[in-house]
């Protein structure tokens, strides 16, 4: 579904130029769950941001199904993003002023989904995420794990083809982290493609394939056999 070739991204500041991505080649198949690992500063987040159309690379190609995304203008990128992608962040990034329900509803509003339909979709996903009795709460009133579940719910409510998760368990203890990972797996099983950045090999073991980055290169790739067998 995703085909990335010779992706290069350079950050220029006044003093130094940092090559965050240095010729990345990558593919992701539809329905796959891919983990990206590597030492701090190797360019994982940058890669994810580029894949999420939040950042523009200097050169290379990024094909989604058969559309070349890097030639799109801002408006087209924005539209493509809101229709096809969902995001989960390490620090949840929920809006403090909105309730759980409203947070989840937000992407639907921006996708111009009618109100009754929205209500239905949000309630569905809230049920699925096991946070029904929390729907009127504000983010501060939830535990970290609950907050991340809300964030996942928000990423999924539009039924995106691709979910991008940057260290989704980074701010959680192991039991809460597992909850989130299981959620992502369930999701993957229903056909959503997931690309996740993580430092934890435990988390990575949930995925089909693990890609190792270093200094902006892909240095190795490992297919997670146990998971793939399960899949079959």
């Amino acid at each position, binding site marked *: 579904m995703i085909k990335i070739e010779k992706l290069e991204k350079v950050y220029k500041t006044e003093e130094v130029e940092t090559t965050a991505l240095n010729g990345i080649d990558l593919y992701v198949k539809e329905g796959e769950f891919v983990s990206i690992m590597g030492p701090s500063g190797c360019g994982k987040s940058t890669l994810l*941001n580029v894949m*999420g159309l*939040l*950042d523009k690379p200097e050169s290379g190609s990024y094909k989604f199904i058969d559309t070349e995304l890097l030639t799109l203008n801002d*408006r087209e990128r*924005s*539209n493509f*993003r*809101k229709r096809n992608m969902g*995001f989960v*962040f390490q*620090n949840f*990034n*929920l*809006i*403090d*002023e909105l309730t759980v329900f409203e947070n989840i509803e*937000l*992407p639907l509003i*921006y*996708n111009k989904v009618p109100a009754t339909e929205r209500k239905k979709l949000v309630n569905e996903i809230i049920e699925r995420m096991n946070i029904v009795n929390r729907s009127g709460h504000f983010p501060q009133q939830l535990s970290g794990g609950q907050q991340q579940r809300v964030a996942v719910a*928000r990423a999924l409510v539009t039924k995106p083809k691709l979910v991008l998760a940057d260290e989704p368990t980074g701010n959680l203890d192991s039991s809460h982290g597992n909850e989130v990972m299981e959620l992502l797996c369930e999701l993957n099983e229903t056909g959503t493609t997931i690309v996740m950045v993580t430092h934890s090999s435990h988390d990575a073991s949930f995925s089909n394939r693990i890609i190792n980055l270093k200094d902006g290169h892909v240095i190795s790739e490992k297919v997670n056999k146990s998971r793939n067998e399960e899949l079959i």
Partner: protein
Amino acid sequence: MFKLNLKIALRNLWRNKGITAINVGGLAIALAAFILVMLYFTYETSFDKTNPNYKNIYVVGRIYPDFKTNYTPPPLGKAIKQHFPEVEKMGITKGIFFELVLKNGNNTVFTNNFLQADYTAAEILDLKPTGGLEKPAGDVERLSYLSKESMKALFPNKTDNKPEMVTVGSSLMGIKNKINGSIINNPHSNVTFDGVSIGNELGQGENYGHNNYTTYLQLKPGTDVANLQEKITRLYHAELLKGETDRETIDKIKGISTFLDPLANQHLKPKAGNDAPYKILIALSVLGILILIIACVNFTNLSIAQATKRAKEVGVKKVMGAFRFQLALQFLTEILMQCFAATVLALILAELVLPGFNNLFLLKLSIWHADNGLIWQLPLILFLITVIAGIYPAMVLSGFKPALVLKGNFATSKQSYWLRNGLLVFQFSIAVIFIIGLFIINAQLKYMRSQDLGFKAEQVVYIKNIALFSDPDKFEPVREKILKIPGIKSATVATGIPNGTANGTNTYTSNGVQASINYLDVDFDYFETLDIKLKEGRFFSKAFKTDTANSAVINESAAAKYGLSNPIGQTIIGCNTNYKIVGVIKDFKDRGFENATQPTIYAIKDPCGNPKMEIMLKIEENKMADALAALKAQWPEINKLDGENFRYAFLDELYGKLFKKQEQLQSVFFAAAVLTVFIALLGLYAFAKYITNGRLKEIAVRKILGATDVQLLKLINSSFFILVVIANIISWPVAYIVTNMWLKTFAYRIDFPVLPFVTTTLITLLLTIVTVSIQAKKAVNANPVDALKYE
């Protein structure tokens, strides 16, 4: 340490150049307005303050059941001085308010206000002829002094201080009079004059009926004024009641009391007079203070909006052991620096604006004057604004908890939300009131300028004249000579000109109705010269012999007042004359727009009238300059009494003076509207910055979730939009009441307009959206990844 702090401060101010400029600039503008108000306040409240006995001088006035007056009879002052030892000095003055022409050869000056004062009054009022105040000899001698300017005009080469002889009146009439020297006329005093004549005693032989003097008392320090006032009333009654037996007269006298009014109050709120200047001063001062306080609060808001950027510095410093008060002091110093810069800028701004301000209010204020109080006021103000604007940010900034701040968990409290919203609404309300006011003043002025006056003041030249032309036969030869000059179309003389002054009133009877109406005595061609419209009948004409005897023209209002449906040929009786009405004219606005046209009768012959002196000529526009030159050259021959003193004015300019007050008001409202709008926008800018800074993360998240720029701008704007709408709605009733009250002072006015309210709302909303969007655009355009990265 200090040097380091200074470095941090300067770098910070420099890094945020834009904000610093807005902060300092906004404060400077408000401060400049405040400095002007302060100068004005000091000026208005310090009339006569240079008088060494300023605090002990009082004016004696009298209270009748229906009015108060400062006019008192000469014997009263004498009696007061005789009876009450606490009165140190007593003096009386009297003005001469008709025009005197003074000449020395070819040099001429005109005095309108020649003051007569007795010697003690001159002492009390600290009158200072050059060379010192001299005591006149005996009962008759009068020492006359001319103002320095007039003296200079009459004797340009005079260097000594010796007396001079001047001619009073035209040189043909020649009465010589002695001028003893010059005297400083202090315009910053309640007693102003073109000249002074000092005698040892004024009003000899005049009694308690001659109420046309002003009595000044200089009291011994510590006198009980209320008590003295009562004693004077009793004395006044006792003096008037001497030999009085008639019950009614006695009651009448007992109904009058006296009062003492401090000299210090004479300019702003004299007991006998109106206190409008005082009210205006207070209103202006309140406005000035308000503007300054609001600017300070805006400054505070903007500083706090910047606080996030400094949080880390505070956190790190605290971890390294800085005390809170050290940090507070550091921030206060920074704010003091900015306030100081603002003060310097404000002085420059005030200096630039001052000429316009002086021009508008006919003042001569100056910043660089030692006695205007700025020298001690400014440092005080600087200190005050530093404290008002600086304390809160200093407390907030220095109060950051290092642990939270360093983890990036930085949130400002929401408690001040209501306060901020309230402040913003308040700022906009004031701005809205001024904008609406400005629109309505503009509309009324436009109406006044475009409205048909019913007569034409353009190209009418009014000639100042001291000869009397009550008899038409006396004016006829003058008219003939004037009309010989090319370009002059008509000439007339009357007892008054239509420049807003009130006409006389008298009782006339017609159609069985007796009524008091206005009268104006005119000559032939009066209506033609002024282009007044005839409704029925005819104007005065030389073809009718009776016109100089008992013909009258009345205006529509008069016809209506007497219920004359068919006025021509009817009689109207007044002043022992049976007038026959020969014409009815349409009402014209001879008294401007504030006073309605009164029912008026016009006649050529009027035994009760004043002498006709006001000459008016209608002159063709393109021959105006030549005609005026010819008039000037021929005037001694045309009008012997005036002789070489040919002085004229254009009637449209004189009439235009009726608009002066409104134009002043317009300027004040314009300045106030611009200033308040500017300050409100500044406040809004700070607030919007603060709000958007607090919502950066939210904006980023929404953007990632697919919000468009327009949606985000709408989101940020909406709360401000509502606040400004609320401000507008709050202001409407206030603006309505105030402007309606103002409009009601006009007899001829526009219908109360609704448009200004709508326009003002639209303008303020538009400005709001632009201001907020400028601020929000940055946040909206930023890459959301950056906003989310550093939590």
